[in-house]
């Protein structure tokens, strides 16, 4: 045959195949939900990313054992599809895009870091895929008013003031000075800003406020801070930086009356690596393993904690728990709109609206209700912030006054004397 005829024929065949392939997408039939998970499985935040992975994984395993998510008369199993953001917002956005376009996920369980959450959110708006992050805490996320992004943990500007309040009001002698350090990432910077705002409001003098790049050597800063002799050293960062600051402080002989650190002191590694040096560090949380709540998937908070401890060998912290509860919220919303897998774009739009209307009173995390207006749009703002202090490796609630389990220890004993 003539060359041009062959070309034309192959073009027609290829086009037909492509169209057939494309057409199949919207008519996909599945009897299980495809749940995308974007988190830090490698890179500098791999530790925290795995905290979230444990939370999401335990939920998916537990709910599958019970038959799956119940929508209408049938129950549907869930299958987690993981994407690694490599602890980098750009890589996270790429990974999210690839996962969405190649896997056709029904909904997404969200990233560990606020930075990746902010990078992924616009992509979710574009593809209309609802996501709940069980971890991100920066208020900057909610101010952008993304329609498809939700979060279970109240933003740090709502929770960060609580430990400062406890220290300003509930301990004697009341602290007068505070030094604040923050690592330069979306979350840690928000924490430092929240601490600063709260400290100024309570009349504390902020003797040093410094935002430093990730991986900074803290020794020169600690030396400078030692000279100012602050009552409180407050740090916004992740567990690695907190560990290094405690080590640097110990090696330089800096012992403020209390260390206040967020986020990471509730993770097992912090306590394991520092041993006795981790004791008496204060932090903020919205959940502890000791709180009493009923739960539809796990039975109760206590049973969830036990299941997590047996499955992973470590106690869950408030981020792991915050992730474990995200699936339940989706399940409630899916049942509401009666949407079995696979979800069409229209159903996903309805799902996002349904998430706004979901109001759960009985979950392992406490009450869940996403705000639908204001600066904390789509954030679960109803949870009460607690001040905790590590005592012998346990998280003890020491504030606010009406819910404390024990009195806060202040000033804390010197590390060298423990």
């Amino acid at each position, binding site marked *: 045959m003539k060359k041009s005829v062959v070309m034309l024929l192959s073009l027609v065949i290829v086009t037909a195949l492509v169209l057939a392939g494309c057409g199949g997408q919207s008519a996909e039939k599945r009897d299980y939900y495809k749940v995308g998970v974007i988190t830090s499985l490698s890179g500098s935040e791999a530790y925290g990313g795995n905290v979230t992975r444990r939370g999401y994984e335990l939920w998916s395993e537990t709910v599958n054992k019970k038959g799956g998510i119940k929508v209408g008369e049938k129950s549907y199993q869930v299958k987690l599809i993981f994407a690694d953001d490599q602890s980098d917002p750009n890589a996270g956005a790429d990974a999210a895009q690839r996962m969405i376009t190649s896997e056709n996920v029904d909904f997404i369980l969200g990233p560990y870091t606020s930075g990746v959450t902010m990078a992924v959110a616009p992509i979710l708006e574009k593809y209309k895929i609802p996501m709940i992050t069980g971890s991100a805490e920066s208020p900057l996320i909610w101010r952008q008013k993304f329609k498809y992004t939700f979060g279970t943990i109240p933003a740090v500007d709502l929770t960060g003031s609580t430990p400062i309040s406890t220290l300003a009001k509930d301990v004697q002698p009341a602290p007068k000075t505070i030094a604040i350090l923050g690592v330069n990432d979306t979350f840690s910077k928000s924490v430092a800003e929240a601490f600063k705002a709260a400290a100024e409001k309570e009349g504390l003098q902020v003797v040093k406020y410094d935002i*430093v790049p990730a991986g900074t050597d803290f020794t020169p800063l600690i*030396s400078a801070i030692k000279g100012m002799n602050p009552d409180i050293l407050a740090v916004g960062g992740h567990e690695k930086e907190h560990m290094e600051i405690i*080590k640097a402080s110990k090696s330089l002989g800096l012992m403020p009356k209390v260390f206040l650190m967020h986020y990471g002191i509730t993770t097992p590694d912090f306590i394991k690596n520092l041993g006795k040096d981790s004791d008496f560090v204060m932090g903020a949380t919205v959940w502890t393993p000791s709180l009493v709540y009923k739960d539809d998937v796990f039975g109760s908070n206590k049973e969830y904690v036990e299941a997590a401890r047996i499955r992973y060998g470590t106690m869950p912290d408030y981020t792991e728990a915050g992730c474990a509860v995200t699936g339940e919220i989706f399940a409630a919303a899916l049942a509401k709109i009666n949407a079995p897998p696979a979800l069409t774009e229209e159903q996903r739009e309805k799902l996002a609206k349904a998430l706004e209307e979901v109001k759960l009173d009985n979950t392992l995390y406490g009450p869940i209700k996403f705000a639908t207006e204001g600066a904390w749009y789509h954030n679960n703002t109803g949870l009460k912030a607690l001040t905790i202090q590590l005592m012998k490796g346990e998280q003890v609630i020491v504030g606010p006054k009406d819910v404390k389990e024990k009195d806060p220890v202040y000033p804390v004993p010197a590390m060298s004397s423990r």
Partner: protein
Amino acid sequence: MELMLQTLINGLLIGGIFIMIAVGFSLAFGVMDIIDFAVGEWVMLGAFAAYWIQALLKIDPLLMLPAIFLLFGAIGYGFQPVLQKVINIKHRSAALMALAFTFGLSTFFRGSALTLWGFNNRNITTFLSEQNINVFGITLPALRCVATITAVAVTVAFMLFLNKTRTGMAIRAAAENKTVAGLMGIDGTQVSRLVYAMYAALTGMAGVFIGAIFSVNPDMGLRYTAFAFFVVVVGGMGSLSGAIVAGLLLGLLASFVSVYVGGSYIFLILFLFLFSMLIFLPKGVLGKGV
């Protein structure tokens, strides 16, 4: 005044550790003409070696420093021929390919560490971890002092070795001109292997100290690759004395900027300094680079 002194000392102490990394890195470049992108990962491996020694054998890693030095030396010696094969490829861009190879190596090491040892942050404690020395009101962390003293001792030993022994002379000759050195009867292959072995040993040892001072995790190496480049460019490629000065300079700069300007400006000022060096003093701060 006290703060300034403390900042100065802190800078010198951390600079000492950078020197350990830079000296080996600079020499490897001088002799093998290879820029090893995996330098930070050797640091990471050294830190993990120390961690596992402590975890499994319950021995203080500082006591095992000589053993780690020899271990990494042996690994470097054994590994160098692989690297040499890549450098020897008869290709226009052999140097570039060697660069890409070490870059791939760096990614491989990082990924393997994450896969084998997991994502947890590890801590190394030594008998020196909690000690500090008080001199004239300045607090010196004992661990950093020992690290710097070791760095100085090792560098001095190195310089003596290079200048006072036959093998040292052979290495210097090969670094200057490999072809002519070969004509003089110096086995370029052996020299390269020896140099790479020392580089790996020094960097691994630095890793032990860094792991003890900071923390151990698979991702820790990247910073030190960047710092190694900084020190080598500022000190002059291939110049040992330049590497020493640059290492101290890096430590001092980081320390002073941290305290007097603000933590957020560290990298800005460091790289502005680097760029100025490249423009005004391309042969390094002592003018001895290539």
